């Protein structure tokens, strides 16, 4: 297949055991087919339409839109996140099916960006959700967004895009961080019950 580039072939030659080849193949299929849930939170929302339409055509890399969180592989958070929005984002993320990935666009989810002293936006997204790829810029252009997808694909192929596993293993840490900003307006327990080994202690 044309999609097996030189890098893929080199990786394949290095694999020793049959199970490693199976894992590699499964990851190859995962990276070649990415259903994207574009969560337009800030100014980055306007960068997504040109990324997926005629000008930049993300579909040639196997990236296409997903209609619902159940069907999506990656959630693209495009910009600043108000506390109220973050609640919806966490709920959406928890509805997605593993393996699932998060791409954060722009400076705002990394360090607050131009909203660094705002009272109602979060400053560091990776305290609340496991971010796999961040694309810096204010705002990153579609070329940079596509570059972010390429970085995610590389990560998936290497088997390192395991943010969902990290979220499950460290659910107490993430929920405590979330509680710090939500206070008594925390998400209902049933959205994350299944992450806890004792059936929901939060």
């Amino acid at each position: 297949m044309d999609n097996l580039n030189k890098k893929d072939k080199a990786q394949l030659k290095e694999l020793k055991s049959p199970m490693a080849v199976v894992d590699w193949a499964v990851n190859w299929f995962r990276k070649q087919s990415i259903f994207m849930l574009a969560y337009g939170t800030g100014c980055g929302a306007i960068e997504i339409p040109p990324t997926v339409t005629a000008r930049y055509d993300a579909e040639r890399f196997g990236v296409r839109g997903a209609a619902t969180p159940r069907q999506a592989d990656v959630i693209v958070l495009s910009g600043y996140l108000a506390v109220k929005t973050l609640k919806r984002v966490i709920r959406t993320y928890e509805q997605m099916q593993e393996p699932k990935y998060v791409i954060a666009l722009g400076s705002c989810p990394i360090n607050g960006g131009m909203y660094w002293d705002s009272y109602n936006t979060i400053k560091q997204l990776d305290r609340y959700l496991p971010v796999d790829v961040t694309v810096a810029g204010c705002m990153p252009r579609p070329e940079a967004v596509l570059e972010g997808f390429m970085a995610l694909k590389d990560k998936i192929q290497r088997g390192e895009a395991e943010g969902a596993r990290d979220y499950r293993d460290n659910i107490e840490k993430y929920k405590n961080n979330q509680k710090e900003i939500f206070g008594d307006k925390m998400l209902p327990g049933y959205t994350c019950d299944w992450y806890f080994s004792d059936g929901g202690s939060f």
Partner: protein
Amino acid sequence: MLFTIFNSLLAVLLTYSMGMLYYGFYRIGNARIHRRVGPPLWQNVIDNIKLFAKREAPGHGIMFHLGPVIMTAGTITSMLFVPFLKDSAWLQGFSSYGNLILLIYLMVVGPLGNALAVGVSGVPFGVMGVTRGLTRLIGLEVPFFLSVALLMSGSGTISISEIMMAQDSFSNWNMMAHPAAFIVSLFSFVGMMGASPFDVVGAPVEVYSGPQAEFGGKYLGFLAAQRVMFSMVKLILWVDLFLGGATNVFILMAKSFALFFFYFIVGAAFPRFKTEQAVDFMLKLPLIIGIGAVLVRFWSL
């Protein structure tokens, strides 16, 4: 018996691979219309395998699990009662035991089973999608029944194999012999294939993909696989009924692709109807042509 089982498996494999190929063409064709490069031809297969490789899938009890299974079973059962080739022992399935009336019944079993599963999930978007789907079905089925009734009375049989065998030359193809029935059936065909202007039920931007809203992972994989197979069953049925059938797989592919291309062009050219508009449309022009043709037919008997 072993030969029949082997034949059935072959039919499943053939419809899956042909369907994935056609829908790969569909995606590339649409991309070219948008002046894009588009995905590779085998992108649908990659998507399908990826869906089966997801580690999780949401569950809502036994009925939810059974929905995609009933849908797939409905598709495969319908497939087994459609003869793929004429003058051949291959790819006949159980078509000698069934007929057109049984097939019409079987073709709606899957969607009804899926409707139950969506209802169990309790997702309002899914339930809205199912309601829209079943409403649309009323519009699509009436002209389809009329065209099939015309065909059965014109051919004097309800057996698909016999209808296919009777079309021995181009002038005897039912699209030439019964043009009114063919034209009426094409309206239903485009709707049943889910092309614009009748695609309000499952289009990605319409109430979040309609009946499939809650299905992810392996469930969506099943539904995607059965969708392409069911589309192939419909294409092959139309080839059998109106395009003179096929004596080998290559002719089958050529004829079914011609129909698929028609569906693709119509889908690419027309904007989307709302559900009620779709039903209204189907109950106007196609119904009038259908009833007119039936009256002429019985007048001439």
